[in-house]
């Protein structure tokens, strides 16, 4: 990890490319055109194509049959997580995601439920407006709203993928203990315990 933390680009194999100055006068421009036309750079490119065709060493992924693996921090369609302990929804309806959303695409209706607790009665994300910035996942105090890897959201209906039920971890996935935690920004880091200041308890 240490190597990635070093943001000093001048170290470690980087070098500045020596680029010629642009011609300023007409004669200089003319010379550049003649030079580029007759150097045969075109054939260098064609040669590479030909070489790779013969070798059959293809790097192109034939999507959608083949798919790239996606990093854990990839920000695609939101997911709503459940609690490991009780399988109930994590969302407490605090409204922070609604507030922080810079494209104003999250809205929720809350009410009081029969146990006098706050309940989210409706929750929508307008994916037509979402820019997948990840602020909602970052601000969520319960790690309830996160991003998932589902990026195939082309549809003939705008309303698709905005349903709370769709985003919520299915209960059978929960039963199999197969819910994946989001490891992107806002997630708990491995050192969290060390950073917490302990509150004294009188028990």
């Amino acid at each position, binding site marked *: 990890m240490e190597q990635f933390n070093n943001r000093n680009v001048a170290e470690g194999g980087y070098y500045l490319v020596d680029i010629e100055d642009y011609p300023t006068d007409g004669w200089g421009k003319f010379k550049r055109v003649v030079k580029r036309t007759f150097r045969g750079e075109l054939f260098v490119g064609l040669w590479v194509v030909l070489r790779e065709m013969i070798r059959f060493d293809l790097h192109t992924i034939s999507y959608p049959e083949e798919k790239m693996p996606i990093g854990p921090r990839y920000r695609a369609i939101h997911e709503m997580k459940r609690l490991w302990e009780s399988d109930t929804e994590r969302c407490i309806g605090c409204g922070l995601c609604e507030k922080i959303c810079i494209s104003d695409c999250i809205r929720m209706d*809350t009410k009081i439920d029969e146990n*006098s607790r706050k309940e989210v009665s409706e929750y929508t994300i307008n994916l037509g407006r979402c820019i997948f910035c990840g602020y909602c996942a970052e601000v969520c105090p*319960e790690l309830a709203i996160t991003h998932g890897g589902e990026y195939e959201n082309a549809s003939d209906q705008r309303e698709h993928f905005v349903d709370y039920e769709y985003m919520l971890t299915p209960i059978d996935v929960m039963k199999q203990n197969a819910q994946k935690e989001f490891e992107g920004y806002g997630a708990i880091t491995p050192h969290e315990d060390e950073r917490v200041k302990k509150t004294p308890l009188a028990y």
Partner: protein
Amino acid sequence: MSKIVINIDGKEIETQEGEFLLNAARANDIFIPAICYLTRCSPTLACRICLVEADGKQVYACNAKAKAGMNITTSTETIEKERRAIMEVYDVNHPLQCGVCDQSGECELQNYTLEIGVDSQTYAVKDVDRSAHDWGHLHYDPGLCIVCERCVTACKDMIGDNSLKTIARGADALDAEFKETMPKDAYAMWNKLNKSVIGLTNGTDVLDCTSCGECAAVCPVGALVDTQFMYKSNAWELKQVPATCGHCSAGCQISYDVKHASIENPEDKIYRVMNEWNYVSLCGAGRYGFDYQNAEATKDETAFANAVEAFKKADTIKFTSTITNEEALILEKLKEKFGYKLVNDEAKSFQTFLKDYSEISGSTLYRSDLKESMNSNFIVSIGTAIKTDNPNARYSLNNALTVNKGAALYFHPVVDPIIDGLSKNIVSINHKPLQEESALYFILDLFADKSKLPTDIVEYLASFHSTKTVTITETIKEKVIEILKETKLNEETGEEEEVEIEKSKMVSKKVSKEVEVDDNRLATILGVNDKFPETLEKLLKKKDTFSLIVGPDLYNHPNSKNLARLVALVEKYSQFEIVMIPTLTNTLGVALINELSSESGKYTIGYNTKADFTLSALGDGDLDMPAINQQEGTLTSINKRVNPTNAAIGYDGYTLNDIANALGLEVEYTIDYTKELGSIAGFTALAFDDLDNFYTNAGEEVRGYLLESQSVEVTPDESVSKINESLIIENDIIYLANPVRQFTDFTNKTTNLDEESGIYMSEESLSKSDFNAGDTVVVKSANGELTSKIVSDNKIGGNIVVLPTFDSNLNSEALVNGYRFATASIQKV
């Protein structure tokens, strides 16, 4: 009170002598942290965080008074330590549920925790069960409560219901080591905090009060919240619309908090009403009665064409005073142009009363306002069911009683347990109906400067007095010497022997004595008890500012002219300052703007009242009109202030201005008339957009502008007619007054105010009669009859039956002839 200069943190500021340091600092934009203090209320001293150093001594800024030349430091090292410890203590066992708390960031605990910079916790105590209570319209969560007692203070010092108190928490005592290690004030504060939570004074778990919700408004945390608002919205989602409450003449400054109704419905909806609780207190109607808008209104062109036709046909416009000044001006302009008769009985009687009053007083308006009443220390109220006619007048009365240690006399025929419960220094005089004149004569007799009062009045007043001999029993104390025998041990002989000891002691003895006392027949007419002179003497001790509040019973009284003159005489010849309670929201404005007639013509247009063609903001008329929460405009309040109000929610229908334009008045917006109000005596020519609507840190009201009282020629004739003792209302008496939280059909329309319409009888009179709550009865008077259900009301006492006017379907006004009392018979159906 004189102006003095004090020095806070090196800044010279000017303030009143005896002003609390905290208020002086706030007025000058100097920040001193404080949680439990409420402006206008007595200091609670629960939080102790407002510690400052005054001339080298630690004092609490909320109760230390400013003295000339005082030097105040708001922060020293010890004070910072105290503050830090206090905030840590407040955070002990406070649930980390900020995400779902209804305070949603408007939390003083959060603010001060961050302000003081509490980043770790040193203290701990075992928590006890603090589960939430549903108190009816309020929800109390002791878990979130920091026991600052602001709710208790507001209820006691402002509202006067005394419904809340601190009760035992039942927690373990604090660890003994804290006493040594903690800063002193923080420990004392914690010690008290750890012993108490908030509870109800009525011993049950449901509030039985006048439901103003002020306690929830002042709560610095989310412990006390309105049940209707619980978990509906985060505060930051709401847009504040500054406005003026449209329910009664108090004209309280409120803010409508609006947001889209739901995910499906992007239309704005009012979620709650907030107020600047340091400077204005709302009643239940203002706080919970906000959704009276005319929501379904559309631009119905046929109805509009019909309305224009009706206006062309009509010769009379009948309206209620629940309209803005601008609308009143439009009506007046229409009257000038087309010669309509404007009919508004309730405003007409107030207008006449003001005119009659001005003949003697020399000014068009009463001199005082509720703010002055609040600062006075002796208040008399005559002719108003004060708690329901104008809740703010009652708050002023209560505030004067509790905070100024004042006293009050409440003249009214209907027994009112709420008023009686305000303080022990208020004396209710439940005289017979129609005796308001006697009450005013009584006030003249007691308080007027007889050397200046016209001689015929002095003579008339003297005619009520006679001397009578009464036998009184007095208790006197006498010194009695007793001889007691005691057994004592003789030290020399070692034997017990009897010794006689003389003991003197005081013994009280009852003696009968005949004395001559003054007998005031006015007192007898009013039904004042014999002890009254002594009681009054006690009440009047140390009183120097006097206020007289008069109300609608006088305006509609058969002898209202005489009453108006008496009121003016009280003002002229005694120390009393007068406030008159306008009957409805904008009665004062209408009375000043409109020239009113008393008789209707052949074809009448009604505005918010049923007529041949009805314009209604209630949504039940022939053409829809906007309700007060849907329009911009100004309202004239009891404090003689022209207050601007804003549209909280949209309105899609036609307005009165559209009709006026169709009839040829040619003004683009209704609020263009605001400036034109200046043409009316008393009003100022200011455009609507130039009117502010806020309070400054010093509590100064920057709202609209004050009406200017015009001086009129004084008539030298100060004669008043004598009391007509033959005028009486007997047997079963009915009285027109609303239950608490109801004023008009608009309050009746709201969802949160669920008072039942019906015939209100006190619990006491119900238990004495054959009626039960819920019985359907017929009430018949000389003027009419109505059939409705009996509603038991524990907020009134005595035998007078109260008929509400908030439900126009009940048509209770038809039973009386102007004056709010009438004789009636009540029979079961």
